[in-house]
């Protein structure tokens, strides 16, 4: 049996729970999932400006916090903090290890998820909208394949203490230690399916220990300020118990596990992964002790011949402005403010391809139809946002909200504005043989 701790559920996640896992979790592996859908594209932009950058901005802080503990206890680290530059991240990690006196640490980088050049000649169709990768032209920034567990498992088998990858499937970060530790065959689809269930449950860290869950009066979770991160106890046969460090905040219950099982899942019989098509439909969840939940029944079928590739591209510009109204008549003044801005954007000829007029506190989250039954709030916050094809237009949207101070309804306060360029992501499917992952070692 191996114990895998999940030390981060996204790039900005809390750091102390990972330290707690390393210190008190009796774990064999510590996994950090830190790479969002769009993050690689943004990191690629950073790398174009500076060849030594492009990895996770919190890499140094996380590594400094856990490397001494992990080295002392023989805990191996697996992470996608390499983002757009796993080799630079590995070099940085080795440098940190040296500075901490950990001179024998072996750090491996997994490279080869960058498939921009492999994609270009193939004019692959985009899955989310009508168009092809070629049609993105010079707006195309990056193309990164979701790699599977094999190269990471390979790095572990060659003695890596730290494995740093770029784009890889999130569950694969957890599947890799299982494949390495148990010698699972890469065509044992049911084991890979059950291992994927484990990885999927653990990859969002606190979301299975009580985060993103509490609802006072219905679903109570103790001590969310000290939320403990999860540990998966995985057996050679794929058996799985999810638990957390004793005494930490939060809770692991059948309910938290069920919610996380379906998180970001579409058809539960077909959860597409680079290594397997996992089937979650027969999974059972059983509380066997406080904060110990047994998960069984994950299965799998043969992997597909393609890899999903995340394509980053320059999409548009977004401008936004906000201002608040309160007290009697706040709603009417908020509506008047929206009408004024709507007319101003027309009068001044701001060319927006899409505009949105919200009243935060009333209908910003779910729109006017769903929100219609709500009673009048004490305060509302006007929010106008729009999409333009240049920065100048985006700036003018925020300006038209800000000028409400002196030109709009009575009592407008707390105006705020922003304008930004939008790097969006879309997906294509690439024949898997066109991605060529490799392991590169850096000695501390």
């Amino acid at each position: 049996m191996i114990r895998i701790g999940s030390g981060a559920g996204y790039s900005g996640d809390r750091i102390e729970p990972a330290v707690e896992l390393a210190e008190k979790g009796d774990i064999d592996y510590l996994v950090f999932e830190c790479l969002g859908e769009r993050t690689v594209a943004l990191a690629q932009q950073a790398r174009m400006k500076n060849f030594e950058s492009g990895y996770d901005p919190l890499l140094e802080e996380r590594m400094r916090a856990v490397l001494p503990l992990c080295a002392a206890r023989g805990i191996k680290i697996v992470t996608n903090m390499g983002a757009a530059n796993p080799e630079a991240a590995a070099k940085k990690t080795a440098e940190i290890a040296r500075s901490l006196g950990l001179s024998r640490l072996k750090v491996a980088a997994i490279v080869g998820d960058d498939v921009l050049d492999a994609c270009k000649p193939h004019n692959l169709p985009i899955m989310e909208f009508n168009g092809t990768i070629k049609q993105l032209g010079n707006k195309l920034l990056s193309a990164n394949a979701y790699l599977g567990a094999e190269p990471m498992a390979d790095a572990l088998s060659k003695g890596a203490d730290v494995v740093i990858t770029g784009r890889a499937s999130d569950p694969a970060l957890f599947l890799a230690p299982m494949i390495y530790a148990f010698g699972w065959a890469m065509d044992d689809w049911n084991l890979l399916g059950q291992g994927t269930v484990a990885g999927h449950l653990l990859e969002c860290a606190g979301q299975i220990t009580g985060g993103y869950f509490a609802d006072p009066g219905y679903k109570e979770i103790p001590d969310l300020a000290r939320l403990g991160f999860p540990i998966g106890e995985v057996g050679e046969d794929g058996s799985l118990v999810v638990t957390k460090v004793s005494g930490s905040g939060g809770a692991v219950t059948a309910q938290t596990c069920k919610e996380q099982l379906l998180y970001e899942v579409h058809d539960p019989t077909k959860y597409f992964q680079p290594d397997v098509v996992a089937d979650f439909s027969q999974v059972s969840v059983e509380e066997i002790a406080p904060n110990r939940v047994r998960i069984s029944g994950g299965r799998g079928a043969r992997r597909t011949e393609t890899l999903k590739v995340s394509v980053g591209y320059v999409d548009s510009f977004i401008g936004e402005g906000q201002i608040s109204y309160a007290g009697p008549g706040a709603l009417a003044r908020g509506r008047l403010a929206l009408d004024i801005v709507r007319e101003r954007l027309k009068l001044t000829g701001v060319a927006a391809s899409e505009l949105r007029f919200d009243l935060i506190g009333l209908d910003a989250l779910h729109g006017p139809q769903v929100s219609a039954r709500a009673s009048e709030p004490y305060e509302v916050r006007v929010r106008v946002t729009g999409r333009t094809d240049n920065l100048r237009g985006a700036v003018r949207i925020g300006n038209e909200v800000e000028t409400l101070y002196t030109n709009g309804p009575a009592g407008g306060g707390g105006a705020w504005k922003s304008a930004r360029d939008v790097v969006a992501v879309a997906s294509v499917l690439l024949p898997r043989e066109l991605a060529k992952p490799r392991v590169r070692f850096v000695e501390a």
Partner: protein
Amino acid sequence: MKLREIAHSRTGDKGNTSNISVIAYEAKDYPLLLEQVTADRVKAHFAGVVEGEVLRYELPNISALNFVMGQTLGGGVTRSLALDAHGKSLSSALLDLEIVAPAGDK
């Protein structure tokens, strides 16, 4: 009664698609979910939010339904103009759905 009384829920996102799980607190209430929380009702409940198709998947082992709602996230999380670009708050809205309790049940 509200759906909130018998079920809990979590929203996930992928591109322009949102998925919402609806999980019965107790297995005995799963048939109520099956009968009353239909894809059509969910689509109607999210009028003005869900522009695409709503698909429902059943998971009897964990007394849960999974709703997959297309064209829901303002063109996709990474380019949406919405305040809640991920649609994380949608699960709470779904729990406001009215459920008719079976006769004799308190």
